[in-house]
Structure formats: structure tokens, C-alpha cells
């Protein structure tokens, strides 16, 4: 029960990042690797502000805003331009990887390579029947769940959510109907930045952070996207929870060293047996590219 609970909570944070990735990938088909850079940089900004004796809300607000702006900058200065020149998806992926590398090295230059923590001292624990949770875990669970809910409400019940889903379905059709797809792309990138920043802060508050954790976390999230189903909005979160559960089980029964191997073995299994993921739909061949 304890392992189950730990797994679900870490699954929520993975799912949040996975949803951030898919919020860009589904509507724009951009493989947004630079999101790993956003994930890495946000806790450093919060940490710096706390060091300057700013209050927690101010630090969190500025850090999340910086995350959103960075993600937007990726679209404004890189992907929008590549899209205009009709570049291939490979070009998007590679340039995004380049941006990630630049961001991470900039962080390492400014703040050094060491591990850092956001909170000081040992976390207090909360006991509910047989389950022991730390405050950070409880916070992560509650915040990620509410952010996820807010996102799905936005997606399902608001006008802009409808447009975002339409963009994911058929961008050229949406553009023909007179909607400004460029603005919508910006919206998608800012949502991704927001979700990634929240996930990053929650993870950093729980277990600390370093400059190089971004890509590892993002790749994990992408695995969650593939497992859950790329063509679905709920899939990434489901995939994240599945991954969180499996990783905590592996850590408990084998060793934490085998977590990554188990994760990628699961990815390989899914790619072979069910490449569309748990919640994926079977598309016609023409629509799959």
C-alpha cells in the first residue's frame, strides 16, 4: 500500500510533465526536447529568489513565469521560424535538442553542477492509517492533481481548449476556418511551459535538483506519453501513473539502479506490442504519419 501510494504520487508528477510534452506534441508535432531545459532551469530561479530573501509565493510565481516565457521563446525564435520555412520534423527535434544543451550548460555555468535542495532540513511526515507520507509528497499529490483537473476543465469546457483540440486534430482545416493557428501554437507552448514548471518545482521540492536532471525527467515523460497513447490527452497522465507505479515497485523489489532499465524495457515492449499506447486509437494509415 505504501509503495502503491509513493508510485501514484511520483506518477502524477511524471504525468504532469508528460502532459506538458503532449500539449505541444499533439497540436504542433514539435518534439519539444527543450522542455527538459525549462524543467531544469525553473527550480534554480526559485532557489535564487529564496536566497535573496524573497517570499515563497513570489519565488514560485517568478519561476513559473520564467518557465512559461522560456517555452514561448523556443516557439518564437526557433520553431515558428522553422515552421515558416517548411522544415522537417527532424529539424525541429534537433534544434530543440540544441536549445536544451545551451540551456543546461548556461545553468551549469551560472549555478554550478552540484545538487541543490529547495527546502532546508528533514521533511515532516503525515500518517494516514498505515501509510506514511512526507509533506512534500502530499503537496505534490494535491497540487498536481488540481493542476491536472484545471487543465482538463480548460481543455474540455472552454473555447480555447476546443481550439487546441481542433489544432491537434487537423491544423490546416482549422486555419482554413479562419482561426489564427500561430496564436494557438503560442498558447500550446505556454501551457507546456506552465505544466513543466509546476512539475519541476514539485519534484525539486521533494528530492532536490541539478542542471542535468531535465532531459532524464523529460525522456521519462516521453516514455509515459508513448505508453499512455500519443493521440490522446488522458493517455500521458495514465502512462505517468503506470510508470510511477512500476518504478517504485522495481525500486522496492530489485534496486533503484534498475529503474531506468525497467522503464526502457517497458517502452520497448509497448513499441512492439501496442505502439499506439494504452489509450491510443487505431488511425488509418494515411493519418498516421
Amino acid at each position, binding site marked *: 500500500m505504501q509503495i502503491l501510494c509513493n508510485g501514484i504520487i511520483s506518477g502524477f508528477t511524471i504525468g504532469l510533465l508528460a502532459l506538458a510534452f503532449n500539449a505541444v506534441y499533439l497540436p504542433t508535432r514539435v*518534439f519539444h526536447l527543450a522542455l527538459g531545459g525549462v524543467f531544469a532551469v525553473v527550480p534554480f530561479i526559485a532557489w535564487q529568489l529564496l536566497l535573496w530573501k524573497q517570499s515563497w509565493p513570489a519565488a514560485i510565481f517568478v519561476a513559473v513565469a520564467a518557465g512559461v516565457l522560456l517555452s514561448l521563446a523556443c516557439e518564437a525564435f*526557433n520553431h515558428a*521560424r*522553422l515552421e515558416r*520555412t517548411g*522544415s*522537417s*520534423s*527532424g*529539424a*525541429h*527535434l*534537433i*534544434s530543440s*535538442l*540544441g*536549445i*536544451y*544543451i*545551451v540551456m*543546461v*550548460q*548556461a545553468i*551549469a*555555468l551560472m549555478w554550478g553542477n552540484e545538487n541543490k535542495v529547495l527546502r532546508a532540513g528533514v521533511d515532516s511526515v503525515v500518517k494516514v492509517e498505515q501509510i506514511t507520507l512526507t509533506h512534500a509528497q502530499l503537496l505534490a499529490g494535491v497540487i498536481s492533481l488540481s493542476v491536472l483537473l484545471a487543465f482538463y476543465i480548460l481543455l474540455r469546457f472552454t473555447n480555447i481548449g476546443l481550439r487546441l483540440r481542433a489544432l491537434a486534430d487537423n491544423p490546416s482545416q482549422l486555419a482554413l476556418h479562419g482561426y489564427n493557428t500561430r496564436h494557438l501554437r503560442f498558447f500550446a507552448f505556454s501551457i507546456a511551459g506552465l505544466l513543466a514548471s509546476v512539475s519541476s518545482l514539485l519534484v525539486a521540492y521533494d528530492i532536490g535538483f541539478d542542471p542535468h536532471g531535465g*532531459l532524464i525527467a523529460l*525522456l521519462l515523460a*516521453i*516514455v509515459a506519453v*508513448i505508453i499512455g497513447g500519443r493521440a490522446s490527452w488522458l493517455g500521458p497522465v495514465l502512462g505517468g501513473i503506470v510508470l510511477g507505479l512500476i518504478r517504485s515497485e522495481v525500486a522496492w523489489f530489485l534496486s533503484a*539502479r*534498475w529503474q*531506468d*532499465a525497467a*522503464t*526502457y*524495457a517497458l*517502452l*520497448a515492449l509497448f*513499441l*512492439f506490442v501496442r*505502439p499506439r499506447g494504452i489509450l491510443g486509437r487505431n488511425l488509418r494509415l494515411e493519418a498516421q504519419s
Partner: protein
Amino acid sequence: MNYLLHLLIYLSIYSIVAMSLNMIVGYCGLLSLAQAGYFAVGSYVYALTTLKLGFGFLPALTLAVGVAALLSLALSLPAWRFKGDSFVMVSLAVQTLFFSMFFNWSNPGAEPGTVTNLTNGPFGLAGIPKPSFFQFKADSLPSIAILSLVLATLCGLLCWRLLSSPWGRLLKSMRDDELALRGLGKNVRLAKLQVFAIACGMAAIAGAIYASYVGYINPSAASLDQSILMLCMVLVGGVSNLKGPLVGALVLLTIPELLRFAQIPDEFAANVRLMLYGVALVLMMHFRPQGIAGEYRIQ
């Protein structure tokens, strides 16, 4: 002088890697992040056979190539079905599995190189002997430089002959339109098996030279950063011809040396170098997607 020889050895090693990756990226149109894994397989097989079984240079090298070629099935079988982003993820999975294997196949109680402690985990294997075969013993810097240069030239010749042959043409057309090629009755799957086996075998050659030159190998040789660096080389230099990967290896190895002359403090040099690689990738994709000397744009 020693410094130049050292550079020459590294240039030969990375030229071989870049040429091997060129076969996958340039001739199959697939981005692979697993090349450092095969590089490390070459290093480890070479290290273990020379250290534990007392093999000479040539048998150890042959075995390293064989093992890497066999393990290339982990990439080539998925390549039958996957391309684009999916293949990148598959190669990443292979890469992570290799890294975990090198990192975790250890047991502090046992001696390194035994079945329970094959790779000695994060501490790696040390004391790998310098190459020697027949009467030739490459224990000085110039002799290793000559040896690595000869091997790089041989690999270059092999690539040139293979890729300008009808088989190379088959690969190019497979990259451009696989369905049409299958319609013409060509065995696309076999071609993929062959090209991955050759490319991974070549990466293993580079790994073996590296292990014998440095004399020490640890799992960081198989890290994702190494794979990204290797991919940077072919993407910056360009793919789908012989000179592109060579230019890429040259450029990416020259940048850190230039930084050394630019008097950048040592603690920043590594970060600045990687940052320049990142900038180079972004600029390339915007202004010259086929790379400096390449002919093919990644789809």
C-alpha cells in the same frame, strides 16, 4: 608534438564513429542515439578479452566487432518498423539498457571481469594493455597514432567502396522511398540488418582503439551525452557522403582546442564547449539543414 599526436588519435577514433553513424543517419534516414552504447561495447569486449583471456590485438578487435554486430540486432530489428521520432525513442531505450548493463553488472565482492562482476560497475576496468600484434608493439604515442590512422583509413576505404556500390544506392533509395523499393522486389529488411551490423561493428573498432589508447574504460563512455556528441558530429558535418562526417569530427574536435587557446578558464571550458555544440545544432537547422558538407536533410 605529443599534443598533436594525441589530437590525431582522437580525430581518427571519432572519424570512425562519425563514418559509422553516417551510414545510419545519412543512408537510412534514422536518427540513432545508441552509437555510444556500441562504442562502449567495443571498448568493454576489447578490455575484457585482453585483460582476462590474454587475447592479442587482432583477435580481440575481431571479437569486439563481432559482438557489436550481433548486438546491432537490437537496433536493426526495430528499424524494420519504426522511423522518425519512434526510432529515436527505440535507440534511446537501447542506449539506456547498454548503460544500465555496464553500470550495474558489478559485485563489489568479486574480482572484476568475472561472471558476477563483469564490468566492475561505475569504477570501470583499468590497465588495458596497449595494442600489439605480430612483431609490432604500439606502446608509444606515435605508433598508436599510426595504428589508429591506418584503421581509420581502412574504415574510410570500406565505407567508400560500400556506399558507392550498388548496395549504397540501394540504401539511399530505401531512405527516400522504402515502399517503392519493396515494390521492386528488393530485400529492404536484409539491407537494414547489414547496414546496422556494419555501422555498429565500426563503432566497436573505434571503441577498441579508445580503450587500448586510454587504458581505462568506465560506463560514462556509454552515456547519453556521448551519443549526443556523436550525433552532433554527423549533423554539423553533414551526412550522406564521405566528407561530411569527417568534417563534422574535425570541427567538433577543433572547437575545444580553440577554446583552450582562447584562455577560457578550465572550470568553464567544458560548459562553453557543449554550449557551442548546442548553438551549432540550432544554427545548422536554420541555415544549413544538410550540415556543412552534407547532401541529405533529416526528414
